[in-house]
């Protein structure tokens, strides 16, 4: 589903090809034939993107040996592009400090070329800390009004996080909801029969290995406060449920070690309970586990396989997989286990994932290969999100309910991809080494 693209991206793609393939464009190179209207930046929904100019930041004081005045806006521009809401015009020279005339001239130039907004970043470094004052301007107003100003500060080694937080704030200014750049993605990386849990920034950099169990680890999922990741592991021999602490030096903790399967963790929205699959009572059923007390509450009672719980964001309902009515299908029940209802669907369906917005349940449908589908919780608006190539499965929602990460083997080995909720903008996120599966998008970092 390709729509018109802004000329800036086309121009860059052409120049990339001409300059021998320096990799920049976040999108694959576009064909040369384009509509004459160069500002037809249309989103999948038909809404138009906001053209925002992000020149290099202005160094107000301190030294900048790492060229943060270029790097920070560069990453920020990537974040704004990724949001799907902006078309970013980046990389122009920094506006001189304390020079209102130069600022006005720069903005006038951007406005003439079609920019709707501009960002002026004023950077100060003090020792090992960097501060940026972000000033956001509306270039469509006659006087090019400044509409927001905010300061952000980080240690220099975490300068990327400055970019992410600023980008999220800019998205907030324009949409009323923060962006998702300051998030992480957990996943399992396979090598030699071993699968360990990793965490990386949402844009694919700074991967950190979280487990060294030398065994098979599955299904990492973030707690709502981002402090814990629950996962199933064979580190103890049998498949038990554990949690690791993502940002604290605390040992891995056993959550459930019953006989049989202990799998498919799903944190409740209040962070106190984990829904999970246990087969200790004869066959796989769904239970709620109180994380601090260990108390269990059984939700399903059926000879069928009942597994893969996924909470609605209100915490009142849980979607799950059951083969009680034939092949595996998606069902929904109240969080007490009552009012079980089957969503309309055909075929063999697993991995329901309830959007943080509550309006959509993504799931995996097997018709030969796997593909991702979506449906409303009331069963309406059933639609396909991917149509190959290869197998596409394991969707996980970003906290904005607009982006998803999923795994696909369309390029050979399984890697993580991202896309928008309408199935557009599918882009590869990882490239190994080894197979990368089970992506889990974190909530926004506190």
């Amino acid at each position, binding site marked *: 589903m390709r729509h018109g693209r802004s000329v*800036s991206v086309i121009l*860059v793609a052409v120049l990339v090809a001409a300059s021998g393939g320096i990799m920049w464009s976040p999108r694959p190179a576009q064909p040369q034939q384009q509509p004459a209207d160069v*500002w037809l930046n249309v989103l999948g929904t038909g809404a138009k993107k906001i053209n925002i100019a992000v020149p290099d930041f202005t160094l107000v004081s301190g030294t900048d040996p790492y060229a943060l005045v270029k790097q920070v806006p560069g990453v920020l521009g990537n974040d704004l592009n990724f949001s799907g809401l902006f078309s970013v015009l980046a990389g122009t020279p920094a506006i001189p400090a304390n020079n209102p005339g130069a600022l006005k001239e720069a903005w006038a130039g951007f406005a003439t070329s079609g920019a709707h907004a501009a960002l002026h970043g004023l950077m100060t470094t003090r020792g090992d800390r960097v501060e940026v004052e972000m000033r956001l301007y509306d270039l469509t107003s006659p006087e090019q009004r400044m509409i927001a100003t905010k300061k952000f500060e980080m240690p220099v080694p975490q300068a990327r996080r400055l970019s992410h937080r600023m980008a999220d704030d800019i998205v907030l200014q324009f949409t009323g909801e923060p962006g998702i750049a300051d998030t992480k993605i957990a996943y399992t990386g396979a090598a030699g029969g071993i699968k360990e849990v990793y965490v990386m920034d949402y844009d694919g950099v700074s*991967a950190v290995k979280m487990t*060294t169990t030398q065994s098979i680890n599955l299904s990492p999922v973030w707690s709502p406060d981002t402090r814990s990741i629950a996962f199933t592991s064979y580190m103890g021999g049998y498949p038990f449920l554990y949690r690791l602490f993502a940002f604290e030096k605390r040992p891995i903790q056993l959550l459930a070690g019953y006989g049989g399967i202990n799998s498919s963790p799903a944190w409740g929205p209040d962070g106190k309970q984990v829904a999970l699959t246990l087969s200790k009572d004869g066959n796989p059923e769904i239970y709620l586990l109180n994380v*601090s007390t260990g108390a*269990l509450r059984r939700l399903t009672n059926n000879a069928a396989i009942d597994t893969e719980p996924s909470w609605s964001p209100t915490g009142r309902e849980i979607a799950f997989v059951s083969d009680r009515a034939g092949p595996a299908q998606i069902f929904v029940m109240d969080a007490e286990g009552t009012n079980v209802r089957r969503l309309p669907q055909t075929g063999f369906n697993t991995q329901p994932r309830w959007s943080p917005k509550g309006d959509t349940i993504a799931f995996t449908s097997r018709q030969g290969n796997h593909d991702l589908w979506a449906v409303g919780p009331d069963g309406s608006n059933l639609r396909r999100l991917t149509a190959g190539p290869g197998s596409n499965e394991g969707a996980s929602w970003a906290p904005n309910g607009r982006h998803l990460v999923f795994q696909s083997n369309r390029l050979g080995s399984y890697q993580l991809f991202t896309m928008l909720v309408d199935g557009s903008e599918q882009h590869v996120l990882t490239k190994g080494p080894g197979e990368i599966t089970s992506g889990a998008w974190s909530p926004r970092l506190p």
Partner: protein
Amino acid sequence: MLPRRGSVLFVVPLLALSLFLVGCPKRPATQVASAPAPGVATPPPAMAAPAPAPATPPPSQPPATTPAPAAPAAPAPPTATPTPAPATPPRPSEFADNPNLKDIHFDFDKYDIRPEDAKILDANATWLKANPRNLVLIEGHCDERGTAEYNLALGERRAKSTMNYLVGQGVAANRITVISYGKERPLCSEKTEACWARNRRAHHLVKAQ
């Protein structure tokens, strides 16, 4: 906020741009850093050095029927309703292959014992009854084509189906433990019917007592 039409192309200084963004790759290789992020002076909350959590030694107690906390700081959970389970089984690593016990295989998405596999299990049962001082671990496996979690459940069904058949042939139930590996331990990785069929299996291991 209507966009302006015009013939002016917005010139982007590409080389400069690419320099900035080479440092900020959109599609980087996943680099594994096992050391914490460098130079974290006063980390903001929740971004303390993201060091990998050291793996605790696996719980020294055998798989329990009640969850046991591994971290001293965790409150001891109340004992759940005891389930009528056999004594806690030995770790899988304490079991070994035995050439007298042959694998059986299953149809796609199925866990019922096919007639030809029943004959194999009859032979396995005979050996097990003749060698009663062996504990048995039955593994259930799936081919790669399902999703990971559902296949854990299907693998367990296959292992239990096998166990139930052996018990029906007179093997004492309290000798047998089952474990599912879902699709996580394939014998082969080709995307062919032959390989898939090979992976859809139940495998027996024994531990002499």
